[in-house]
């Protein structure tokens, strides 16, 4: 009797602790989001989104930084998605179980642990200087792609692993090659997971400052980029500059910029999650 009573108390305490942790996370996320919205909303206007910064960046808008961040993120996706998904496919579907594969996996998880400023240095050395791309969208996108690759590879591998091997067997037994099995059966079924994971990785990239500090970002530039070799303003770096380099910190604009960044990233994540849940309803096992 006593033992059961004690077990029940322990159970109650466990529920309370885990529940409190969950509540704390929700509260923190909510607070963060609400705070950014409350502080940033006053700055948001049509002009803010479509004008260039004026008066030592204390007025005007942030269009160049929006465009710069968009360009960098699209560029990152262009490099990281095909390479990351292909590598994930290789690791999940083709790689022989053995030393060399374990080594590749180890390398990937180490890549994910490298601080982003180190990616910045690496990008500076390899893309900006050695490949002579200069400080440019291209160099920045390549640097961010390196940073994002581990996330996309891992997401792809995980998503492919979720697909029951029954389906692969069925396809192979019908006289389909491995590759046909992958692209007709396995990839479509894994697409929701791959997309969600990749968007998460790209969202992170969009908000990074350190990797683009030496490879793409400039302090101030009114002109829109005219090629991939142009350097650009970007949202996170703009926030940093406004907060540290501009006299009389323009709080409105700082939080407004943060809101644009967070809002854009959130909108894309929500769109991906919605698409995924629609797919889920169609495909289940």
């Amino acid at each position: 009797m006593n033992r059961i009573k004690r077990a029940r108390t322990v159970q109650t305490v466990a529920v309370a602790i885990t529940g409190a942790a969950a509540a704390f996370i929700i509260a923190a996320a909510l607070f963060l989001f609400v705070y950014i919205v409350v502080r940033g909303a006053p700055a948001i206007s049509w002009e803010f989104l479509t004008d260039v910064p004026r008066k030592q960046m204390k007025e005007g808008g942030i269009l160049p930084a929006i465009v710069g961040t968009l360009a960098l993120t699209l560029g990152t996706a262009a490099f990281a998605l095909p390479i990351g998904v292909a590598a994930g496919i290789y690791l999940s579907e083709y790689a022989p179980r053995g030393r060399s594969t374990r080594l590749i996996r180890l390398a990937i998880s180490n890549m994910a642990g490298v601080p982003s400023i180190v990616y910045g240095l690496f990008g500076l050395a390899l893309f900006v200087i050695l490949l002579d791309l200069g400080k440019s969208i291209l160099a920045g996108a390549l640097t961010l792609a390196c940073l994002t690759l581990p996330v996309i590879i891992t997401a792809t591998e995980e998503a492919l692993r979720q697909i029951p091997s029954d389906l692969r067997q069925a396809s192979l037994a019908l006289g389909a090659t491995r590759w046909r099995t992958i692209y007709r059966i396995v990839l479509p079924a894994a697409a929701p997971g791959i997309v969600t994971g990749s968007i998460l990785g790209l969202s992170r990239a969009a908000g990074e400052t350190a990797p683009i500090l030496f490879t793409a970002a400039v302090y101030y530039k009114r002109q829109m980029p005219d090629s991939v070799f142009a350097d650009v303003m970007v949202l996170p770096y703009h926030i940093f500059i406004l907060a540290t380099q501009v006299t009389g910190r323009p709080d409105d604009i700082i939080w407004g910029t943060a809101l644009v960044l967070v809002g854009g990233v959130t909108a894309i994540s929500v769109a991906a999650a919605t698409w995924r849940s629609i797919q889920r309803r169609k495909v289940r096992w």
Partner: protein
Amino acid sequence: MVTAQSHAGKGSFDLHDVSVTYGSETAIAGVSMHIEPNAVTALIGPSGCGKSTLLRCLNRMNDELGNAKVAGRILLDGVDVYDKEYDPVELRTKVGQVFQKPNPFPMTIYDNVAYGPRTQGIRKRSDLDALVERSLTRAALWGEVKKDLKKHAFELSGGQQQRVCIARALATEPEVLLMDEPASSLDPISTQQIEDTIAELKEYVTIVIVTHNMQQAARISDKTAFMLRESMEEPAFLVEVGETRTMFTNPGDKRTEAYITGRFG
């Protein structure tokens, strides 16, 4: 137009001293047998005696496991299917398989059945339509789904899903159909339907079916092969193969008799 092929007299297998090794463990050894065309051959034996392993030799699905090595000779209508020149992908269009658990693709019924033909490059809508209808008819499912071909296969019951899988395997017009305990996860009514289907199918294909159900083997098969693994240290082997009626009424081997009368397994 795709014409209905009937492969009559085709789809016979000859196995000579076949053995399969997984890593360092030899699962089956010394299996030699003839598999008759347009007949139902049942593989029976206690669980773990290598029935699935032997079945997977016939369409070279063992190749896909990565750790299985097959030795010996396996001839399909006199042609060595383990020859270096022989493409397993081509073999599998002639030797189809239905698995233990229904495993339809996450797509419509139509697309499931059309998957094999499309893989072979058949694109014409009317050809595909004809193949889908014929395959579903042979799998005894056409009447139930002809109005719902665009329905997602996952919306069907387990028994219907398994018959979609049978139709899908039939759509490549194989000479041989391998079935690995195709009814073991199904309810008695679905099992009955699958058994009825099998009886009709042997007109078109050679059938090799694994079952652990003695009554089922006795009901549906013409030939029965009994496999046994006497200890984990030794590989499994083929005890005997013969007419099902003889095997069940007057088996040649004491161990067969013991197994059939339920003394072990």
